[in-house]
C-alpha cells in the first residue's frame, strides 16, 4: 500500500510538471488553432533562459521569471505578428512545415550558442527530499507542482473574471461570433500567444531545476505535450491537467507493476483507446471553431 501511495504521489507531481509543459500548447492551439510543432523547442529555449539566469546571477532559476515572463510575453506578441498571424488562416500543412522549420532553427541555433553539451542548474534544494510516512517527495518536483498550481489558478481566474480572458474564451469557441460582437480578434490572438509563451517560460524554469537541457530535448517534450493536449481535449485547461496526470500515473503503474520498458507503449495504447471512445478528448467539445 505504501508503494501504491508513493506511485500515486509521484504520478501526481510528475503529472503537474507535464501539465505545466502542455498548458502553453493548449492555449496557443486552443485559441489560435495553430498546430505548433516547435512547442517542445520553445520549452527548451525557456530552460536555457532559466539556466542562463542562474549562471549569470547565481540565483534560483525561479527568480528569473521576473525577467523571463515579460520577455516571453513580448516574444509571444512578436511571434504572432511576424509568423503565427500569417499561418492561422493557411492550410494546416503549412502550420506543420513552418513550425518544423522553426524547430530546426531553434535546435541548430542553440547548438551554435551553447554547443551540444548538457547544461543543468544545481539549486540549494536539488538534493532535498521531504520524507513523511515512508514517502519520499523531492523539493524540485514539489516546487514544480506549486508553480503549476499557481499558474493554473491564475489562468482560470484571468480567463473567467477579466474581460480579456472572457474574450479569449469567446474567440476560441466561436471566432466569427466573437468578431460579430466587436471583439478585436487579432488583439486577442496576440495576447493568447503572449500568454502561451509565458506558460512555456514557467514550465522551462521549473524543468531546469531537475532536468538537464540540451538542444534536442524539445523533440521528446513536444510529442508528450501533444499527447496530453489531445487526450485532455484541445484548449481545455482542466483537460490538460487531467490528461497530464493520467499519463504520469500510467507511466508509474506500468513501470512498477508491469514492465519499465513498456511505459511509452502503454500510454500510447491508452491514448488511442480514449480517442476511439471520445475523439475530441476527455474534456473536448465536438465543434469549436467557425
Amino acid at each position, binding site marked *: 500500500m505504501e508503494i501504491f501511495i508513493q506511485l500515486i504521489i509521484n504520478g501526481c507531481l*510528475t503529472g503537474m510538471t*507535464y501539465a505545466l509543459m502542455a498548458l502553453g500548447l493548449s492555449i496557443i492551439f486552443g485559441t489560435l488553432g495553430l498546430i505548433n510543432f516547435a512547442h517542445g523547442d520553445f520549452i527548451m529555449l525557456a530552460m536555457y533562459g532559466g539556466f542562463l539566469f542562474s549562471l549569470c546571477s547565481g540565483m534560483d532559476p525561479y527568480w528569473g521569471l521576473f525577467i523571463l515572463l515579460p520577455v516571453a510575453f513580448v516574444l509571444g506578441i512578436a511571434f504572432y505578428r511576424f*509568423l503565427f498571424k500569417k499561418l492561422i488562416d493557411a492550410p494546416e500543412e503549412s502550420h506543420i512545415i513552418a513550425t518544423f522549420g522553426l524547430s530546426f532553427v531553434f535546435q541548430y541555433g542553440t547548438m551554435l550558442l551553447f554547443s551540444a553539451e548538457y547544461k543543468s542548474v544545481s539549486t540549494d534544494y*536539488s538534493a532535498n527530499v521531504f520524507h513523511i510516512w515512508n514517502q519520499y517527495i523531492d523539493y524540485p518536483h514539489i516546487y514544480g507542482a506549486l508553480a503549476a498550481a499557481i499558474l493554473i489558478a491564475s489562468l482560470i481566474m484571468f480567463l473567467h473574471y477579466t474581460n480579456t480572458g472572457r474574450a479569449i474564451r469567446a474567440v476560441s469557441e466561436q471566432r466569427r461570433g466573437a468578431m460579430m460582437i466587436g471583439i478585436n480578434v487579432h488583439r486577442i490572438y496576440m495576447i493568447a500567444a503572449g500568454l502561451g509563451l509565458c506558460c512555456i517560460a514557467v514550465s522551462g524554469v521549473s524543468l531546469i531545476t531537475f532536468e538537464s537541457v540540451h538542444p534536442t*530535448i524539445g523533440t521528446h517534450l513536444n510529442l508528450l505535450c501533444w499527447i496530453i493536449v489531445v487526450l485532455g481535449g484541445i484548449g481545455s485547461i482542466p483537460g490538460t491537467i487531467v490528461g497530464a496526470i493520467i499519463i504520469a500515473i500510467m507511466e508509474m503503474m506500468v*513501470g*512498477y507493476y508491469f514492465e519499465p520498458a513498456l511505459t511509452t507503449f502503454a500510454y500510447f495504447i491508452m491514448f488511442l483507446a480514449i480517442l476511439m471512445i471520445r475523439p475530441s478528448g476527455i474534456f473536448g467539445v465536438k465543434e469549436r471553431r467557425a
Partner: protein
Amino acid sequence: MKRAFVKLVVITLACLVSLPAGGVALADTGSKTVKIGVILPLTGPQAPIGREVLRGIQVAADMVNDMGGIWNKTKITLVTGDAANSESARTETERLITVEGVKLLIGVYSSSLAFIVHPIADKYNVVFWETNAIADRLRQMGHKNTYFFGPMASGWGSQAADCVVELIAPKLNKDPKDLRIAVVYQGTEWGKSLSHDGFIKRAKDLGLNVVIDAPYDPNTMDFSSLVLKIKKTNPDIVHTQNYLDDGYRLFRDARKNGLNPKVWIADGCPWAYVDEAFQKFGDDMNYVLDLNQVAGGNIWNLSPTTQSQYREFLDRYAKKYNVKSVMASSDVAVGFTSAIALFEYVLPAAGSLDPAKIAEVVNDLSLPSTATARPGGIKFAPHSDPVQAGQNIRAGVVARQIFNKQYYTVWPKESAEIEAIFPIPPFGKRAFDDKNLKMLSQ
C-alpha cells in the same frame, strides 16, 4: 502568405546550410593528402559524445601530420559527416563515399547507428574502423570491411560480473553468491547485449544472485516507479547501463526515492562526463564505480613510447580545445586511441587504403596491452569468425571509481591506482576528502 512561407523556408535552409556540421575538411590540406571520412553524431541527443570522439580523432590526425604524415609525407585530411539520426547517418555516409570519395571511414560510436552505416561502407567496399559500437550482433552481420577496435558488449558485461567477484565481494567481506544484484539497462540492442547477454549470463555462470533484470524505455521522463521496483528487492549492488538523458534521470530518481545500495556500478555515458555529472549531483557522484574502456589517470603500465604519446595527446587536447580538466570526458580518449592505432599501426604498413591490403595488415597485427591506452592490447579476429568477425579480441574494460571529479582505476589489480572504497555512504553523505585515498604503488 505564400511569400511569407517561401521566406521562412529560405531562412531555415540558409541556417541549416551555414552550420559547420557536414562535409567540412578539418585539417589543412597540403599537396599530398589522403581523405579519411569521420561519421559521428555531431548534432542531436548524442552530439556531446560524437563531438568528443571527433576531437580525439582530430588530435590523432594532427599528431601524425606534425610527424610528417603517412606514406612518404602524405597528410591526413578528415572529412566529417553528421549521423544525427538514422536517416542522416545513411545519407551522410553515402555522401562521404560517393561525393567526397573517401575510401576509409572511422566512427560511428553508437550501435544503433552502426547497424545503418556499416552495411553502406561494405556495399561500396570501403573500410570502416569502428571506434566503439559494442552491440554483439554487429560482429555477426557478415561485413568484410569492418573492424571493431573497442570491446564487445557481452565481453564488457561479462567483465563487469568478474569485477563483482574479484573486487566488490572481498571489499564488502561477503561471499559473491550472497550479494543481491539489480541489473538495470536501456531496453535497446546495446543494453541487452551488455547487461543481459553479458553481465547476467556471466553472473549466472558464476552463481551470483541477480534479483531483478530490468530493461527500461530510455524516453522515460521519471524513473521513480523503476527505482521503487529495484528498492523493493533490497539490492547490495545496482548495475546500470545508460546514455546521457536516461542515466541522469535514473540517478536523480534513485536519490529522490532513497535507493542506497552498497555499490553503484555504472556502464555508459553519464559517468564519462564527470564535470557535468558533478554540476548536477555534486558530492553524490562520489564513490560511483564506472566501467569504461579507457583507464583513469594511470598510464604507468604502458610502454614508454605509448606513455609519452598519450601525454602529448592529453596536452594537445587541453590546449586545442581549451579544456581545463583532461579527465572531463573518456570519449575523447576513445576517439584518440582508435584513430592513433589506425594511423600508426595499420595505414603505414598497408601503404594505401585498399581494403585487401588493410585486411592483410590487420590480420597480422598483434600488440600487447602496453601498446595502447585502451586496456587489453590489439589482436583482431578474422572476418571468417562467425561470432566476432573483425573484433579486437584483446579489447577489455577497467573499473574506475570516481572521487571529486577524478577517475581512479581500481580494477583489474594490475592497473589499479587506488584501493576501492565500499560500501558507499547513502545519498547526501558522500562528501569525500582526497586525503582518504589509499594510493597503490606503481
